[in-house]
């Protein structure tokens, strides 16, 4: 299902979309496929596959550690494409989250082509702003990949409007100033940021990331956002489990809890 269709379906059901993030190849290629399929089965509407990168400046310690493990175990860019193909093949809606250098290295046009062929519907670029994205925007359009840029509480009105205008599928709102990682409370800056995006483009779905770790927090975010993006808390299920089977149990349980959360938040 496309990103727009996924958001449209959730909206029709009066709820928010649950986006679950997992690094490709963590801890191995096959294990990460199993984790992502489990997340999708247990209620994640969108699987956000993160391409592991050596210098992830936007990520907190949990995603860094998982990415380091994946890289140490030898995951390659082509493995990430293979993982996307497997997870999309299992019926999930898949988007890729990636820092820019691996894409530039692969070749921007070739990557967009191969990403589309693998079945991903969109790509999130945490360190690529539209100002530098001319080549990516052209390639994404050519192969029908939705491009998601980030907006931040510090974005000026002009930048926010420009960024939203360059997004397709959905906008990623970073709910607070800081890197990824579960937090005990959801930022008060988030509702305001979502409202600012809506003021610019009422039709563009807004996903809120950074900080959500429980069903209650998911419900809280679902009350004002179209999508709830969860990364670190899900990854920790696997990272801190004594074995993979336990990790997947925890992953399913948390995914289900979060899925319940996005359904109990008052839709905006």
């Amino acid at each position: 299902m496309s990103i727009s269709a996924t958001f449209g379906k959730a909206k029709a059901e009066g709820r928010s979309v649950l986006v679950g993030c997992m690094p490709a190849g963590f801890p191995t290629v096959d294990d990460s496929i199993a984790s992502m399929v489990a997340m999708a089965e247990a209620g994640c509407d969108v699987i956000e596959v993160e391409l592991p990168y050596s210098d992830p400046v936007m990520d907190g310690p949990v995603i860094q550690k998982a990415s380091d493990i994946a890289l140490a175990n030898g995951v390659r860019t082509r493995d990430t494409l293979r993982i996307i193909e497997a997870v999309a093949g299992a019926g999930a809606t898949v988007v890729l989250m990636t820092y820019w250098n691996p894409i530039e290295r692969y070749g921007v046009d070739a990557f967009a082509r191969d990403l589309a062929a693998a079945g991903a519907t969109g790509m999130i670029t945490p360190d690529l702003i539209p100002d530098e994205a001319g080549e990516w925007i052209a390639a994404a359009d050519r192969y029908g990949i939705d491009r998601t840029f980030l907006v931040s509480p510090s974005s000026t009105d002009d930048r926010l409007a420009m960024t939203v205008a360059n997004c397709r599928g959905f906008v990623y709102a970073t709910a607070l100033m800081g890197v990824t990682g579960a937090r005990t409370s959801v930022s008060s800056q988030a509702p305001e940021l979502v409202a600012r995006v809506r003021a610019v483009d009422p039709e563009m779905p807004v996903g809120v990331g950074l900080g959500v770790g429980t069903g209650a927090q998911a419900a809280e975010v679902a009350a004002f956002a179209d999508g709830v993006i969860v990364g670190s808390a899900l990854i920790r299920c696997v990272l801190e489990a004594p074995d993979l089977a336990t990790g997947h149990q925890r992953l399913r349980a948390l995914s289900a809890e979060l899925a319940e959360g996005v359904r109990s938040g008052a839709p905006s």
Partner: protein
Amino acid sequence: MTAEALPDLAGHFGRYGGRFVPEALVRALDELDAAYREAKNDPVFQDRFHGLLRDYAGTPSLLYRAERLSEALGAEILLKREDLNHTGAHKVRNVLGQALLAKRMGKPRVIAETGAGQHGVASATAAALLDLECVVYMGETDTERQALNVARMRMLGATVVPVTNGSRTLKDALNEALRDWVASVDTTHYLLGTAAGPHPFPEIVRDFVGGIGTEAREQCLTQLGRLPDAIAACVGGGSNAIGIFHAFVPDQQVRLYGFEAGGDGVETGRHAASITGGSAGVLHGARTYVLQDEDGQTVESHSISAGLDYPGVGPEHAWLHDTGRAAYEPVTDDEAMAAFQLLCRTEGIIPAIESAHALAGAARIAPRLAAELGRTPTIVVNLSGRGDKDVHTAGAYFGILDQVETIVPGENS
């Protein structure tokens, strides 16, 4: 477009530079850019900056004609004595400029990354002088190797945070400083240590250290009555090199040479030569030359010189390389250490191992230039820092630390 006019308004040097950063940092970078442009044209700011450079840092640094070294190398060698600056390197120019800028922007806190600790010490120094809170990120591996510099920073009132992610070295310290900045940007200025990173840092740092080149150019005209044939500088991130190059870029007859850290040799893969041994990519906020694998993952760098041990380089160097205005060559650890020893023995100056790369490069190009020009060439070498910090490394390299320990009374006569 002429070199002097670069970067463009978005921070591009040709295809290099720019901003590859999270959106969360863009406003801070825009504010920094605006504040810098105001400060650049504000005589009060410029007076304060140049006053501190003169009265506190001890610049202009001397341009010294090294007679015995010149004889040994068959060239007229002039040393730009940045090693005599307060804190012992060119870096004091950058930190004073940026700390004044932080003050001007009303930011009470500065953060910095450091490898061996030189930029950390310089940042802590400027922060102490200007009453700013200072937090320095340093790879855990480096905090262990450079315990004395950690102590120096703490004496100066800075907080040193050991970074335990990734390879636990400079690039990880830089990542961690960027993460801090994403979360603290309202109150914090990121005092970046080299002419790299997202726009406007490469331009700001270049301008703050640019006095090296304008001074050297004037000194050449006064002391020699002419410009030199060549400039030699070491290149890690590239701040001392861009600092001395910039004023000479329009002088086409002055050859510009940047010497990268060749480590064990570029062919071994164990080096830090981003331009001569790397490829174009994006790292730490800019498009430039980087050490990377087939998938664009950053490859760890290696150099005997901690200050050059970085897998990227400032974007203006990438551009100067591609346009051919400057030439870049790798210098191995062994070549650098031979030059280190030569300077110690001929001039009584212990250079930073970083600067020894520039000396080794000058030794290499001297006969080449002599042949080409048909006369003795004049080469200005940027002696970017002093070697006190490197005594342990150099002592171990030359195997002379053991000698001190094993001297037995009665046996050393």
